[in-house]
């Protein structure tokens, strides 16, 4: 499994609704890269939150893991930080670097989580996912989308914990993808009462036209 799979899965959970996090009164036509950047910020925040909580517990024996993780996540997913993503003028390289950094923090957090007791693992995974979902909802993401993201974060952490424990190769994001495929396939299945139909693919005239035109261009060059 690639380390950036959780970022892809969170970006899929955000989907086109990621634009609800953009500053109001701005006109955008952002591509899916924005969803990856926001997902990177979310994965990075959750990873940092989990790591900060575990670090504090190791230092002073604190058991308030969720409180510490939630505070860190809220701080990182502030309105200013998230809205900055929409204003940033990044390049492919800078976007890749942001994604790599987030994936690496998330992976480190997963590893650290694996060292906790099972009950604490579950509690911290759920608490961190809930804190991220709440922070995104406060920033304007509809409740249902925020819940979808929360579930995906939880799945990512939980799936990885199971994987590390059992060597299972269940791919992250598979749960949400399976759900989407199921919805798509049920809609695609024709009803028993549908009339007989014909199927047409898009016309291929462009390709034919290209083949016709190319010789004339060469002729002009001569």
């Amino acid at each position, binding site marked *: 499994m690639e380390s*950036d799979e959780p970022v892809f899965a969170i970006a899929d959970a955000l989907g*086109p609704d990621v*634009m*609800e996090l953009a500053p109001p009164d701005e*006109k*955008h036509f952002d591509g*899916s890269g924005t969803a990856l950047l926001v997902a990177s910020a979310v994965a990075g925040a959750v990873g940092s939150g989990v790591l900060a909580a575990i670090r504090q517990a190791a230092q002073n024996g604190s058991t308030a893991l969720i409180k510490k993780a939630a505070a860190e996540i809220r701080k990182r997913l502030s309105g200013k930080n998230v809205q900055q993503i*929409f204003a940033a003028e990044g390049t492919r390289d800078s976007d*890749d670097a942001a994604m790599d950094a987030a994936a690496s923090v998330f992976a480190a957090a997963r590893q650290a989580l694996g060292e906790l007791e099972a009950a604490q693992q579950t509690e911290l995974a759920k608490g961190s996912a809930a804190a991220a979902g709440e922070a995104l909802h406060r920033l304007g993401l509809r409740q249902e989308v925020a819940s979808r993201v929360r579930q995906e974060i939880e799945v990512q952490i939980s799936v990885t914990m199971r994987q590390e424990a059992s060597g299972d190769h269940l791919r992250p994001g598979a749960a949400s993808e399976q759900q989407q495929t199921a919805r798509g396939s049920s809609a*695609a299945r024709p009803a028993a009462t549908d009339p007989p139909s014909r199927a047409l693919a898009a016309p291929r005239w462009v390709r034919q036209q290209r083949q016709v035109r190319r010789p004339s261009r060469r002729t002009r060059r001569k």
Partner: protein
Amino acid sequence: MPASGSGSDPVDELPVSRLADVPLPSGGYALIECNLLAWGLVGCRAGDIDRYFAFWEAGVAAGLTDGPGLAHVVYRMDGAPLGGGWIEKRANGMGRTHLVVDRPRDGPAAEIIVDLTSDPASQRLRRILDSDATGHRWQPARNALVAASAPLVPRQQELIAVERLVLERIGPDADGTAPIAAGVCEEISKHAGKLRHELAIDAPQAAGLLLAAQVPIACAAQHPGNTALAELIRRRYLVAAAEHARHGPEVMAHLLVMHAVRDGYAKVLDYAAATYYAWAIAMRDAALAGPPDPLRFGAQLYNAPPYAYAAYLICQGARAALGKSAQGGWARMQTDAEELFIRIGDGIYAQYRDWCLSQLDRGREKITAAQARGDRREVWKLIRDGEFGLRWPRSYRPYLLGEAPAPAVEYPEGDRYWNLTNPSSL
């Protein structure tokens, strides 16, 4: 964007630079084009697809590429400038539109002059219908052509009909106590649904009719124990809608909403806007989860814009009525609803463009190239760009990844009057 952008693909790679150069279809292909073109004409704003193609043709003429860069757009009508602005596409795929005169940044910029009198899509639809390639004269497509014939001057005929209906039923001569307003609202609602199904009105008109019928009902519902007051409120807002109907859906909705907000119904309208927005989102999501068929995807997208626009109009009117005291939530919802409306418009247009110009093949070629380079992130981005931008449903993934044949349109054999739009969409 200007051809200077590195790694960009020139738009004019296509063998045509004008829609008029594309050969006319026949048989089932003609029927499919009639549907897709007609939805493009009235799916969002009347004549949108004409403006999209006018922009595309002007972009090809200006050497525009789909890579990063800056473009200055000037709209002209009968030779006279009619506004414009700047379009900025950034290296990471993000983009901004600036409806300002000042240049947002330095660097080369393509100059795109768009002639708004140009109507390439309407002309093509007219040619297909006139050639009788479909073997009939499909009335909804004719309706769409009529509705789009004056894209910058909203056609108020249907709204004026509402004004007449309301004033006839509950004007000064009507019985002041009879509970007739709810019936009038229902009649307007049904009428709007029928017109929308017949492709006779665009989304702003449908949204205007929706609000004219439903704002009175929603406000009156706040007084369940007082039927006389409820009837009075329904009439009050119906008359308010009718009085402003001839000024167009935007003005009518704006004044109706301001009226209701000032009467203390802001929470009702907030709930209505959130509900309309949620319905539009649900329709978009249903389309995204649909089968790999551009016509079914387009038909599902066609149902959503009136709701997104109704939410937008409510927020706009409420912000005007409430002033600075309640900008936050309303401003956000207005931006989200407008964003959704525009995305759906892009999606409806893309169904026709991709079909007619075989653009899906180009998308797949790019993905194949990224797969060959082992660039997983680029593959993800290219596929999701299409899904998030409502260019294709998720069921296209196997095709785009080279695992399935091209999406095809399934249509009922022998049905020449086939209309996929939902008759009860409003």
